[in-house]
């Protein structure tokens, strides 16, 4: 019983820690901070060059995760490494809030697989 309780509290702490780590930023501030992103990812977050990902409408917390991964080096990309080097956690939250708030062309695969419709 005790072990179960310990496990549950561990889970609760983990859940709390992971939500606290990725907060929601300010999209208006993000728009200003994202100026350098626009050259590749488009002002509207819908990159025209097919080698760059579309960001508009992508999940806020996914964008934050990716930017942190570029910063830590876990995800290794020479261009993005330089871009995120100067970003604070707050900057990352704001920029992610901005791009995720834009109307985009992205969607989940729901309804798009063979046999679905």
């Amino acid at each position: 019983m005790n072990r179960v309780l310990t496990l549950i509290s561990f889970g609760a702490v983990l859940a709390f820690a992971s939500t606290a780590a990725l907060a929601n930023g300010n999209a208006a501030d993000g728009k200003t901070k994202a100026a350098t992103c626009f050259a590749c990812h488009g002002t509207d977050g819908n990159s025209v060059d097919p080698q760059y990902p579309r960001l508009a409408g992508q999940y806020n917390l996914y964008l934050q995760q990716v930017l942190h991964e570029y910063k830590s080096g876990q995800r290794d990309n020479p261009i993005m490494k330089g871009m995120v080097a100067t970003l604070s956690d707050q900057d990352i939250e704001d920029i992610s809030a901005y791009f995720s708030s834009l109307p985009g062309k992205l969607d989940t695969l729901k309804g798009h697989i063979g046999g679905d419709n």
Partner: protein
Amino acid sequence: MTRLHMLGLVAATALFAATSAHAEGDKAAGRKLVYTCAGCHGVPGYTNAYPQYPVPKIAGQNEQYIVNALHGYQSGDRKHPTMDAQAESLSDTDIQDIAAYLSSLAK
């Protein structure tokens, strides 16, 4: 006139290079291949575990980016336990087909 000819030649070469650089994928084949992807990428708001973050929306994503991402998982340049395993089973043609289909879904 000569200059015009030169320009035309350069443009033609650039066009040819751009098209031959990546083969056109087969969207219909891609549609079948993404069946597996939908287990995670087809569930709105589905989260990755440890660390927790939503699995990205990939329908409508740009073609070459998808190709690069899957090749990145194959080569180990990009790491994610589930995606490494998924990408490993894909041929280059599969990847082209998946990217062609996903990019065609742009809203």
